[in-house]
């Protein structure tokens, strides 16, 4: 499988993503510079974390106008899988590919810690392999990860099962103290209505091998691999 990992000026989790995809999972992955207009033969796209364009104006606001984002939009419109992590999530919301917005953490602090995640639905290309009831322990590292959407959008997210991950305590309860940033409904990640574009603030690529303290993030990648594998089999048949 071929993955495209976008690189904006000041992306800083692009190498983590490439390492996980190539080194840990053994897939093919390449960097795609933000000025490129094509994603090549990518089967899926990762929009990595970082501080694209210095987070100037708003996180992700400038990156969304990069030439490569036109290709990402087209890729998503054609049903391709796109996963945004941290700043990548912010870029995808700014681009209108995902609903809502990410604002300053409620305590104004940058949070760099492991949190617990509950998977709200396994009905998505990004969660289908996560075992039922499994609580994921994955790191976060952000100052602007507080998920906001108006009431109408939140109702739609719930009705369509678009909330994929929520911050919880170690037993899976969605408590306020387990919510590191004040996100509405403890939302850590969502997908679009078509379910082929998703974003989350936690970093699954930094939790893909036990040497890093947790390999719970691999369930998210395994979910993507399973969908891509089925697609390849379907195309071959």
């Amino acid at each position: 499988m071929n993955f495209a990992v976008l690189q904006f000026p000041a992306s800083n989790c692009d190498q983590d993503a490439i390492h996980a995809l190539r080194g840990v999972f053994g897939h093919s992955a390449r960097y795609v510079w933000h000025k490129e207009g094509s994603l090549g033969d990518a089967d899926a796209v990762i929009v990595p974390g970082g501080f694209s364009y210095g987070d100037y104006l708003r996180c992700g606001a400038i990156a969304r106008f990069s030439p490569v984002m036109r290709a990402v939009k087209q890729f998503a419109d054609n049903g391709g899988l796109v996963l945004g992590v941290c700043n990548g999530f912010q870029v995808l919301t700014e681009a209108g590919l995902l609903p809502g917005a990410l604002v300053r953490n409620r305590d104004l602090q940058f949070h760099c810690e492991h949190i617990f995640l509950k998977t709200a639905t396994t009905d998505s290309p990004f969660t289908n392999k996560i075992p039922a009831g499994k609580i994921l322990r994955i790191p976060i590292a952000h100052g602007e990860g507080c998920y906001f959407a108006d009431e109408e959008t939140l109702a739609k997210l719930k009705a369509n099962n678009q909330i994929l991950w929520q911050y919880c305590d170690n037993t899976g309860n969605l408590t306020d103290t387990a919510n590191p940033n004040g996100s509405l409904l403890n939302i850590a990640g969502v997908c679009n209505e078509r379910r082929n574009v998703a974003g989350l603030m936690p970093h699954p690529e930094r939790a893909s091998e036990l040497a890093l303290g947790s390999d719970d993030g691999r369930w998210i990648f395994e979910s993507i691999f399973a969908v891509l594998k089925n697609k390849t089999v379907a195309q071959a048949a």
Partner: protein
Amino acid sequence: MKAKIIITPKKAVVDPQGKTVQGALEHMGYKGVTGVHVGKYIEIDLAPGTDQATAQRALNDAAHKFLSNPIIEDYKLEME
């Protein structure tokens, strides 16, 4: 000609910066402050002879699409 754009967080969005500044003002003894909202101010210089109405239309478009995020922010555009 100059355009001034003031961007403020929408009332529905929690504004921890505003709340913190408000707390600090109270702490310093400034009485009667019932709300603080911290936003952004952008000043844009325009070439001499620019048609004001045309510039205003273009800047409203830019403010809506790029300079502010209508999901979380409101903006006010002033031409001078």
